[in-house]
């Protein structure tokens, strides 16, 4: 790599000189206007020209359309009333904005209670994982740990084992302890840095910490700070981008996850939102099998989905700027 860079550097100097000579010659030519036109279309350096810009926009708008279309479809179809649904001329924009579907969905989901439960789960899991995974990640990145390679292998195993492999023993576990149908079986593993995608978060932190310069810690250690002080006072404040990324991921994934709630909270009266919408969806499907598919169910299922994804979208709208920055500052991987 170094050799390559040196080579590039050498060539750069040579090329620089010849490039300067080249521009001079070109300017003196009569046909300079032609190259001006060429530059504005293809760009002086090919990625600054109109053609390239156009290409970028075509790709992005196409791809953005793929992502936005279902969301827009959801929003428009959930405010359609019966007449608009039956009228084939009403495709995208409903003639009247009808909030009945949202009201129904609100009632079906038992929204305030389910929202509270989802919030409790996601916030506590996210907070716990943000801390516990940071501690484990720091140990993996920097500290002397006996049998570290073996432990790291275990960590990778945790990453690739499907949840379904361990769910039944854990269910039995929870039943014996009498915590089934409470939120504890979902929250407690997060306290230890496990839980939903915990291994991935540890790996993210590990990557982040191992890219930080060692001098900072060494300086703090020489000043007499203990390893705990170094971690909480020096490393954690540095890790803000990683913390943000992990928190947001953890929050959103726990919020959307319906597998764990469907296992541990199956018999609760008010399920969290993710489980709630999957129940409503299967209810609608069952209904459709008996009486045939109905176009009137679509606005309802769209409205329930909307109510569920609204909170993470609002959260993301606030955190978005820092989030992207966090990702770019090797928040994710190195």
């Amino acid at each position: 790599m170094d050799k390559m860079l040196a080579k590039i550097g050498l060539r750069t100097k040579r090329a620089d000189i010849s490039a300067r000579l080249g521009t001079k010659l070109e300017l003196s030519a009569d046909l300079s206007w032609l190259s001006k036109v060429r530059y504005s279309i293809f760009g002086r350096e090919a990625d600054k020209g109109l053609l390239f810009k156009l290409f970028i926009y075509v790709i992005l708008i196409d791809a953005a359309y793929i992502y936005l279309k279902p969301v827009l479809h959801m929003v428009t179809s959930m405010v359609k009333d019966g007449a608009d649904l039956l009228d084939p001329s009403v495709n995208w924009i409903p003639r009247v904005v009808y909030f009945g579907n949202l009201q129904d969905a609100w009632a079906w989901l038992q929204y305030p209670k389910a929202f509270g439960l989802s919030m409790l789960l996601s916030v506590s899991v996210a907070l716990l994982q943000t801390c516990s995974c940071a501690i484990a990640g720091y140990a993996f990145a920097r500290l002397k740990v006996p049998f570290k390679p073996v432990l790291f292998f275990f960590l990778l195993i945790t990453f690739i084992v499907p949840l379904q492999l361990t769910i039944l023993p854990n269910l039995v576990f929870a039943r014996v302890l009498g915590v089934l149908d409470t939120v504890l079986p979902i929250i407690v593993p997060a306290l230890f840095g496990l839980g939903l995608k915990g291994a991935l978060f540890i790996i993210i932190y590990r990557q982040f910490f191992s890219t930080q310069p060692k001098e900072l810690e060494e300086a703090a250690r020489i000043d007499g700070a203990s390893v705990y002080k170094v971690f909480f006072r020096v490393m954690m404040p540095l890790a803000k981008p990683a913390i943000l990324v992990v928190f947001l991921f953890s929050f959103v994934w726990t919020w959307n996850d319906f597998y764990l709630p469907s296992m541990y909270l199956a018999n609760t009266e008010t399920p969290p939102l993710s489980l709630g919408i999957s129940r409503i969806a299967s209810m609608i499907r069952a209904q459709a099998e008996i009486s045939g598919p109905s176009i009137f169910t679509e606005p309802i299922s769209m409205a329930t989905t909307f109510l569920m994804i609204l909170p993470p979208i609002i959260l993301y709208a606030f955190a978005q700027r820092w989030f992207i920055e966090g990702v770019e500052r090797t928040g994710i991987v190195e």
Partner: protein
Amino acid sequence: MNKATKLRASMMEYVEGTIFIAPWFIGFVLFMGFPLGFSLYMSFRKVNVVATGMTSSYVGLKHYKDILLEDGSLLYNDLIPFLQKTLFMVPVIVIFALLIAIVLNQRFAGRSLFRAIFFLPVILSTGQVVSELLTQGEGALGFMSKYNVSGLISGNLPATWATPLIWILDSFVLILWYSGVQILIFLGGRQTISNSAYEAARIDGAGPWAAFWKITLPAMTPFIFLNMIYTVVDLFTFPTNPIIMRVRDSEYGQFSALIWLYFIIIGIFLIIIFILFSRATKSQRMVA
């Protein structure tokens, strides 16, 4: 510093490291190690659920034999189409994510708006939401039905490969919805390439095309590797995955055997990717 204090200092460091790792390790043993061992043990036993709890009796390798040799409907009927789909999906997802990440890295007006849009799948694509959003036939591409592409494919390919390919094209949009995190990983990875490398190449007369193949792609190889691993793990452990779906309603001993076999298959897949990449990076180093 004499030997004894040095030794003690290094002992202290190990103790500190152990304290930091201990919570995770305890959690691992409780919530991962023990359940893993339990399900492995149960995969050799026949489990009966009775009123007072569970009883089980040793059956040896019977479950594994049943699944692998006797009853094809247990594993193969779902696994083989799924593996075929995965073979198509992984490259599609990774290439699409790479393309979007590189484009998002350019400077252009409205970049932050587009970035915000491309993080939508990260927020929405887990759990029920996508399937909910895409059930209304939003998954297909418009040109498929217009030009009768599926007819063309099934006419020219044997059915075993035509079916997954048609499925891929039919649910192309759905596949793109799975690429949110992959785009993020590539965006992060792209930041590790310094701009001076591009400048040098540009002055050297390399166009963006050459720069992509000579600089971006080699530097992105580790991230492509990471993304392939992530995608494979994600696809294999997705709750709506056919094997994981069917596993829920079979009996526990067999369930354990099935999911252990499945886990081994994931492992083989990952090892193959790993070998391919270590070869690729080796040959790259030789060229450099």
